[in-house]
């Protein structure tokens, strides 16, 4: 399940609902990762653009991989502005055993950072500035620049 929200996430609501939704499904481990906007570099907040069709595909590949391991992944992410100390991201794994959950959340969160089609902007002094230096080119980037 992929959930996209305008602005900050209601973390208690989402964590609690996901827990209850899976409570009878015999998963021994529930491992959510919550990402919160830090007060750093003088920002007022962050802002996000999402290319939803490809994020949906990206997430479906992870769902399929989790399923092969007997697990379930869920994800929530913000669109638009999220202010300092608000949360913009939750990824969660449910799995029968702890080892799969621990390994999967780690791989999910890292690959998410490296390849999910989401762009981040700093909100600073009223401007919305692409966080280019903190962003990662998706694997295979640059092919259009190969020709002279």
């Amino acid at each position, binding site marked *: 399940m992929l959930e996209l929200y305008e602005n900050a996430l209601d973390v208690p609501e989402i964590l609690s609902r996901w827990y209850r939704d899976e409570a009878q499904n015999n998963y021994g481990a529930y491992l959510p990762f919550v990402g919160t906007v830090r007060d750093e570099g003088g920002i007022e907040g962050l802002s996000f653009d999402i290319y939803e069709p490809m994020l949906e595909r990206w997430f479906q590949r992870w769902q399929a991989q989790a399923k092969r391991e007997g697990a379930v992944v869920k994800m929530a992410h913000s669109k638009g502005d999220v202010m300092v100390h608000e949360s913009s991201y939750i990824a969660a794994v449910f799995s029968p055993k702890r080892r799969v959950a621990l390994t999967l959340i780690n791989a999910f969160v890292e690959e998410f950072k490296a390849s*999910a089609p989401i762009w981040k902007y700093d909100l600073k002094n009223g401007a919305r500035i692409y966080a*280019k230096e903190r962003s990662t080119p998706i694997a295979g980037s640059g092919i259009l620049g190969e020709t002279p």
Partner: protein
Amino acid sequence: MVRIEFLGPIAKESVEMEATNLKEVANRLSDESEIKEWLQICAVAVNDTLVSSLDTPLKSGDRVSLLPPVCGG
């Protein structure tokens, strides 16, 4: 005609052009100074699937998307 979309922070409207493969798209875009710096760092998707070769063929109606460096979370 294929349609070229510029995602995220690239401040550019979509354009349409005639092209039978990605190399032709690359050649056309490299003439546009505003977009040139992005070409070095963008990933490319055709109809929402990432591609890795300039030889990727294109047909009329295809959508080519440029994806700048990402940072979710």
